[in-house]
């Protein structure tokens, strides 16, 4: 039973006992008082009438008159004078209307009075016995009215007590609601801090919870800083601070396997010409400093795209991988303009040649093809001149003109709807966690992977519509009794309030299915819309669906922000998983990430598990579940 209900019961009990008790006590006291007064009046009046009768002549008419005068002028029910032998001498009895008091009330609270009895003398002889009884009806009326007034006050007092009680309960529970909300948030792995309430008891609870949240936050900050440091040591080129060749190629692999709005993009390669000559002229240290600064310059082009990557492919070649980059010439010329300008203005005449080559890539292409195309563009640039910039023609010409994509997507959604793929996500224990369900759309007469159309959909602002279609389809599949499903949401959906509210209402309408749904967003998108993502987590938590972020592992600088999100899982990017069995550095990173995530109750899933060796290695590092080409499930 809730505290508020208990408080209410206490208030009602106190009100009933105090008001009801006072009603009973005052009614009974009034009844006793009236009884006493009536009885004393009976006795006193009987005595005084008997006295006056004793003193006067016992003429029958006079006696009768005396009694009649007393009766008519007074308030009596009965006056009776009997002779010593029991015969009646004179009698008067009231025969008027009864009091206006309900009969049940008179039966419930009877007013018991005793008649007054006195002796009448005639000289030495006994004349008779006088019995006198007053009317008790006015007493009943008084008692009845008093009780009614008390009941009225009872009602008014009860109402007042209720009103005051409501206010008091509101006052008490206002901070309590926040305390409970925080406790539930912490229970849901959202380690939030709240302002301390004024109530002393609540304050100490909130203080303790805040301290807990703060400890978690600082622990995550420390651990993620350590992870970031570890990542830099193992993944970065020590001289320039950008990814080394091995890690960059793994990032490229993962980028080519992506099936979301960031599938496809631009790969840009630039080459520092005449490095031997440069070494000779600047000295080794000078040449190294120049390379480091060049790498820093190049990294600035990442800007807010946290999933872009800069790598050093070999001694002279640097590369920029820009997933979702949609215009290779623009990017290439921007980079070339910036770097060449820097070379010219910064007195770096020593570096003569810095050709830039760029090409776009599509999801699903082979790494070698893409690299060869980029190299071709670079070679063409070298041919063209030391500061040339070349862009390779697209791998395949764009299937549709940009303007036609929108119509094609709308048509596909309307005519064929979406289909969901089924890729098992299996726990380390061997159980099936859920089926990952990437979206398929029928385009050009074929069911296409998300990588085929999602980049275009993103440019046409269609990802929200696709996400909702996927959600409806997934909920329908779940309603039909399928396995738990995992679907991807795009950052644009997160940023759009109308889409978000539609998402809530869809999930709220089907709580049964929502409990078996896993929703994930790319890490860079979730962190870009951190406030909206936090709100989404809070809103979806009661519905019971699981929330996670995808493509974790590019960097860990912002991972501490997850401490108050209330996530259920993180999914590690395929670039870290690739050849994990032979990469002690990435193993250490994964181990650290798993420890960190487990400490706040998150599961860690690995994506893109492509080989048996990877599958065998991952559970030992603390990975809770895996998906990828090497993961199969019999029923799938």
């Amino acid at each position: 039973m809730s505290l508020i209900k208990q408080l209410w019961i206490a208030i009602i009990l106190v009100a009933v006992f105090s008001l009801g008790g006072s009603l009973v006590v005052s009614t009974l006291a009034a009844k006793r008082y009236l009884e006493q007064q009536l009885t004393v009046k009976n006795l006193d009046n009987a005595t005084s009438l008997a006295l006056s009768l004793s003193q006067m002549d016992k003429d029958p008419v006079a006696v009768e008159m005396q009694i009649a005068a007393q009766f008519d002028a007074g308030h009596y029910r009965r006056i009776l004078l009997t002779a010593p032998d029991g015969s009646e001498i004179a009698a008067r009895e009231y025969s008027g209307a009864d009091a206006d008091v309900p009969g049940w009330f008179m039966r419930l609270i009877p007013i018991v009075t005793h008649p007054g009895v006195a002796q009448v003398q005639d000289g030495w002889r006994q004349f008779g016995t006088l019995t006198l009884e007053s009317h008790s009806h006015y007493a009943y009326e008084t008692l009845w009215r008093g009780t009614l007034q008390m009941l009225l006050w009872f009602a008014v007092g009860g109402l007042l007590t209720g009103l005051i009680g409501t206010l008091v309960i509101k006052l008490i529970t206002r901070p309590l609601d926040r305390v409970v909300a925080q406790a539930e948030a912490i229970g849901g792995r959202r380690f939030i801090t709240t302002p301390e309430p004024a109530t002393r008891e609540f304050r100490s609870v909130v203080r303790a919870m805040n301290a807990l949240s703060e400890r978690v936050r600082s622990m995550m900050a420390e651990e993620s800083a350590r992870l970031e440091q570890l990542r830099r040591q193992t993944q970065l080129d020590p001289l320039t601070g950008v990814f080394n060749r091995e890690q960059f190629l793994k990032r490229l692999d993962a980028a080519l396997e992506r099936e979301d709005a960031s599938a496809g993009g631009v790969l840009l390669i630039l080459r520092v010409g005449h490095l031997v000559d440069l070494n000779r002229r600047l000295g080794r240290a000078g040449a190294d400093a120049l390379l480091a600064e060049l790498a820093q310059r190049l990294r600035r082009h990442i800007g807010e795209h946290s999933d872009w990557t800069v790598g050093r492919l070999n001694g002279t070649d640097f590369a920029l991988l820009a997933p979702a980059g949609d215009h290779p010439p623009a990017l290439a010329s921007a980079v070339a303009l910036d770097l060449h300008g820097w070379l010219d203005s910064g007195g770096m005449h020593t570096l003569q040649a810095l050709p830039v080559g760029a090409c776009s890539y599509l999801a699903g292409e082979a790494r070698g093809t893409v690299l060869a195309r980029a190299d071709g563009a670079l070679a063409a640039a070298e041919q063209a001149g030391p500061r040339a910039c070349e862009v390779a023609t697209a791998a395949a010409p764009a299937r549709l003109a940009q303007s036609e994509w929108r119509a094609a997507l709308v048509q596909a959604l309307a005519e064929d709807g979406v289909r969901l793929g089924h890729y098992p996500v299996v726990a380390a224990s061997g159980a099936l966690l859920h089926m990952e369900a990437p979206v398929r759309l029928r385009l050009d007469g074929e069911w296409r992977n998300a990588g085929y159309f999602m980049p275009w959909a993103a440019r046409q602002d269609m990802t929200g519509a696709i996400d909702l279609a996927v959600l409806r389809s997934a909920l329908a599949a779940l309603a039909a009794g399928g396995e738990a499903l995992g679907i991807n949401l795009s950052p644009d959906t997160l940023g759009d309030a109308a889409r978000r509210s539609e998402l809530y209402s869809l999930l709220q309408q089907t709580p049964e299915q929502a409990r078996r749904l896993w929703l994930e967003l790319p890490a860079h998108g979730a962190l870009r819309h951190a406030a909206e993502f936090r709100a989404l987590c809070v809103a979806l938590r009661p519905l019971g669906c699981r929330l996670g972020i995808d493509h974790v592992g590019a960097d860990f600088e912002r991972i501490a922000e997850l401490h108050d999100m209330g996530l259920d899982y993180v999914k590690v990017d395929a670039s870290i998983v690739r050849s994990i069995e032979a990469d002690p550095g990435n193993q250490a990173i994964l181990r650290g990430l798993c420890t960190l995530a487990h400490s706040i109750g998150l599961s860690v899933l690995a994506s893109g598990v492509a080989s048996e060796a990877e599958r065998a290695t991952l559970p030992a590092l603390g990975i809770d579940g895996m998906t990828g080409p090497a993961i199969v499930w019999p029923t799938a």
Partner: protein
Amino acid sequence: MLPAPPLCLPLSETRPVPAALGRLLRGLALCLVVVAGFVPAEPKLDRMQQLARERYGNAAEETVADWRRMMAEAQEADEVERLSRVNAFFNRRIAFEDDIVVWKQPDYWATPLETMGRAAGDCEDFAIAKYMSLRLLGIPAEKLRLIYVRARIGGPQSTLSQAHMVVGYFATPGGEPLVLDNLIGDVRPAARRTDLVPVFSFNSEGLWVGGAATSSADPTARLSRWRDVLERMRNEGLQ
């Protein structure tokens, strides 16, 4: 309750009858209230005797013991004989004295124990003691009355009179009573008491039909000296 100086004879001074009578009558109503529920039961007379020794000494205990002996003997006799024995016992053993002398109060209604303890009392103390004794001897309340009377003093022709109280015994409801008075030694019929003019009579008959139990919780009972006497009697073992 009754006005001071006490209403009894013998008198040190006389008062006009109407004034004395008026005060008497005013007090009476309340007296009647308090006679409530007095029903003689088996008395705890041993306790009464013990109290007499503790409070008033051996002489008082002796008086109470004598009273008990008299009562035991009177139990054997008929009603008229009981009247004269009770009357004679109190008239002999108790000296008449004003309340102001005995109790240092203008008017005080003493219990039989107190009256016997001090061996002194005024007219209502005599009357109370006699009335109680007769009730203890089993004479029904309807035959007994405590009667306020106007007593003429100084002979048949005198115009001086005084308020006084006696006990009346009615052998038959319609007849004349026998009068137990502390002024004269023997019990006489009312017709022979031309010096007394009856004013008003009362007893405990017909009052508080509901019983003593309810009346004892009644705060109005404490307003009365008569009721006070009855309560004290009860505490002293006489009930």
